[in-house]
């Protein structure tokens, strides 16, 4: 039997989120109610909300169209949260660093692994005697 959480219950359970199981599911109505309570105050709340939304979408409790709208709404909330957190941070903020971090581009030079070339032993210079020995050894080996 499913245990439906209300928005308030879900918010209070944020500190100890129940593991997703058949017994604990957050319905689309609860998610919508949660969104309407206006209690998404920081990025962690938004992360939790997004995770629940993804779960609900996978369980087919919300339609794709509704999910798209919710995503846009969540992006807007994200913008507001970020704007509030950055508006007092001063001009010296490293926004390029933030963009690099978000884009996942690694600006650092890739480490070059230096591989030492395989050492080649100098071939011994062959004298006439060596040539003779080589021929004899070859003949012995072939039982000639």
């Amino acid at each position, binding site marked *: 039997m499913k245990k439906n959480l209300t928005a308030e219950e879900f918010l209070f359970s944020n500190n100890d989120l129940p593991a997703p199981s058949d017994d604990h599911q957050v319905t689309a109505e609860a998610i919508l109610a949660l969104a309407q309570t206006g209690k998404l105050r920081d990025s962690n709340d938004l992360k939790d909300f997004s995770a629940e939304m993804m779960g609900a979408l996978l369980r087919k409790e919300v339609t794709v169209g509704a999910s798209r709208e919710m995503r846009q709404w969540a992006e*807007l909330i*994200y913008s507001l949260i*970020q704007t509030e957190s*950055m508006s007092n941070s001063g001009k010296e903020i490293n*926004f*390029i660093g933030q*963009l690099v971090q978000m884009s996942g*581009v690694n600006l650092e030079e890739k480490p070059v692994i230096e591989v030492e070339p395989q050492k080649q032993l100098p071939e011994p210079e062959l004298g006439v005697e060596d040539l003779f020995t080589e021929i004899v050894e070859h003949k012995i080996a072939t039982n000639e």
Partner: protein
Amino acid sequence: MWDERLFVAPSEWPEEFSSIKSFGLKEAPSPYEVACAILVAPEVGSRFWGFKKFEGEGKAVAHWWLGGMPVEAIQKLLGQKKGRWVSLMENYFSALVKSRKFKLWALGTNPVPACPNRITAQILQRALQGEARRGNVTRGERNAWERFWAHPYISTQIKTGVRRCPIERTLYRPGLVWPSVEDKLEWVYKDGGNQEELRKTIEWLESRVYKRPKWLVPLKFPKQDILAL
């Protein structure tokens, strides 16, 4: 070269420039910041800003002025009505402001709140660092730009001209002009081959002082003995 203001970005926008000097923004970029952005394009390609339709004469006047050419010299070169150089510059900057990328840079706000995904972060990082785009723009990037421009965080700030999260604007090409006369004089008084050439040129010009126009602020070198001390 005779005037100490040459290659020094003006400290303020001209008084007569009231209609455009703010670029429609509450906190407009300084002439030095604009000089670092447009005197030479941030990347090799000429299409970085995407400027459209401006008069060549207006561009020339604006670049002369940003490059530190005295107003009197500009007026003399134009040889026409007194305020014409201002209207030429106004027309030029009005055309520049139509470029959304330039307006974003001039706004000087942190774009991170309007970055919901990696592609947007990548294109913004390239744009605000002045990096060249290798290859053609992909459909994903084009869509990301459109979504970025339509984002309420950005569109609101561009329309109102008020920046919510101020940042220091990127100085794409620092070193083209000096930010102040003091910085220029600091360079001029250093020892070096270029400074020596300049000194000789100024000395040669000073020997023809009768040719010096009244408005000129001559560049002066300290005396050698003072330097030696």
